[in-house]
């Protein structure tokens, strides 16, 4: 390595180090989705934050090297066009960049898989037999709650098996509770997406799709359909969903039970199969 090369390398290294530190400090201030209303959302937010922090020095390095090369090694005006020296590869450099990239990707994979598996384990539902499987209507004890999400063209409704299978057009969840969502559909494929809770699950007719959320902060959130399901798919969104305090939830569910008193709902079931399949046949 010539003296001139060493100067270039030193300049680049110092600039990269300084800009990376600044970049990471900025990256740590960026507000990232989906938020902190549930432990799952918090996990996703911190994983995104980690990815942003790791990728910032890489981004700075690539852009800096490109810009430095453009300006430092540009052809002087009027000089004869001349090719650079031939490059035959650099074994140590190749090993280093493959190894560093592999380590970063593997670390992220481990953290990501850990986050995915713990989202179910955190709720304590994974090891216990659910009330749905036994067909009994369990009471909401130990801060765990089952909620059934029913997609239909074009609105989601919610049944609460722990409270006699009552149904509501709006989703209310108590705070500090492990929620087990059972997502299904009565017609076509929808997708239940509670963005701020960090949860999304497909709603298939004839299938009981289970997903978990542990609520930690109160606040409003939005439920959207995330699967193109027909003419009003774009309007299949409930902006009044909320995580509320335990007391508020009890008041609300009591009102829902009262409102449901003159309804004739079918017995609670994991699926509701459309019948007949062809209308008017």
């Amino acid at each position, binding site marked *: 390595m010539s003296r001139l090369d060493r100067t270039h390398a030193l300049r680049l290294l110092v600039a990269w180090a300084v800009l990376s530190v600044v970049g990471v400090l900025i990256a740590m201030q960026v507000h990232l989705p989906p938020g902190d209303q549930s432990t799952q959302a918090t996990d996703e937010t911190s994983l995104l934050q980690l990815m942003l922090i790791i990728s910032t020095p890489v981004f700075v390095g690539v852009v800096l090297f490109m810009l430095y090369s453009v300006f430092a090694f540009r052809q002087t005006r009027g000089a004869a066009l001349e090719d650079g020296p031939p490059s035959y590869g650099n074994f140590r450099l190749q090993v280093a960049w493959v190894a560093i990239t592999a380590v970063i990707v593997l670390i992220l994979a481990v953290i990501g898989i850990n986050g995915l598996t713990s989202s179910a384990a955190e709720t304590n539902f994974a090891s216990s037999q659910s009330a749905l499987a036994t067909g009994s209507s369990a009471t909401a004890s130990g801060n765990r709650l089952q909620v059934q999400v*029913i997609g*239909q*063209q*074009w*609105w989601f*409704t919610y049944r609460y098996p722990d409270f006699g299978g009552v*149904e509501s*057009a709006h989703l209310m969840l108590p705070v500090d509770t492990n929620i087990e969502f059972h997502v299904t559909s*009565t*017609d*076509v494929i929808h997708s239940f997406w509670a963005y701020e809770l960090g949860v999304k699950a497909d709603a298939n007719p004839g299938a009981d799709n289970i997903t978990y959320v542990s609520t930690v902060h109160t606040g409003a959130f939005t439920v959207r359909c995330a699967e193109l399901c*027909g*003419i*009003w798919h774009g*309007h299949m969104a409930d902006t009044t969903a909320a995580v509320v305090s335990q007391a508020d939830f009890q008041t609300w569910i009591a009102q829902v039970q009262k*409102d*449901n008193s*003159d*309804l*004739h*709902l*079918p017995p609670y079931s994991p699926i*509701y199969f*459309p019948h007949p*399949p*062809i*209308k*008017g*046949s």
Partner: protein
Amino acid sequence: MAALLALFAGFATSFVFHFPPTLTAQPTTVGNGVTIHLETVAAISDAIAFPRPEDPHPDWVSYLPTTVLKVPANSVVTISIDQEDGASGLRNPYWAKAQGIIGGTFHMSYFDDAGAPQVGDFSSLPDPTSLGHSFAIPDLGVFVPLLGISDAAPAGSHNEITFSFKTGKPGTYRWQCFVPCGAGSIYGNGNAMSSFGYMQGTFVVQ
């Protein structure tokens, strides 16, 4: 290129010409507020109050005369519907309950199973399979079940359902029927249920 432009112009023109006209609510004769009169039919060719002979789908179920409704903001809207179609039944019986309407009940003059005329106020329909259609504006929380006409009712008769609700801030809201009533399609969700201007439309509050 010219052919493509012509094709596009053709689509655009046919879309504009087929876009349902707007029905502006009329002031009520008593009190303040506005009123809208609609009709639901088993087939457009059977319409009594609002015939639409030029419709390309005379055998589809539909709300008539149109499904683009315009009402003033922050006002009381009273909708009365001539329900002439038979029962189809709900897939989710939850929609048999009226929600978001003033007093929690709707007024209905109807024919019972024996074909005798009846009148009453209801908050829900006891039998979810008795619904012909429903009127819902989900974003305003308005859901009203419409009883299917009894088989024993005299020919050419209808159930009349009347209800009121308040509109809030201006905006364009969608409204729709929650009874899968698109006869001849898979699960009843096709044709009239999935085309604008038949079993759903927009509710323009301004």
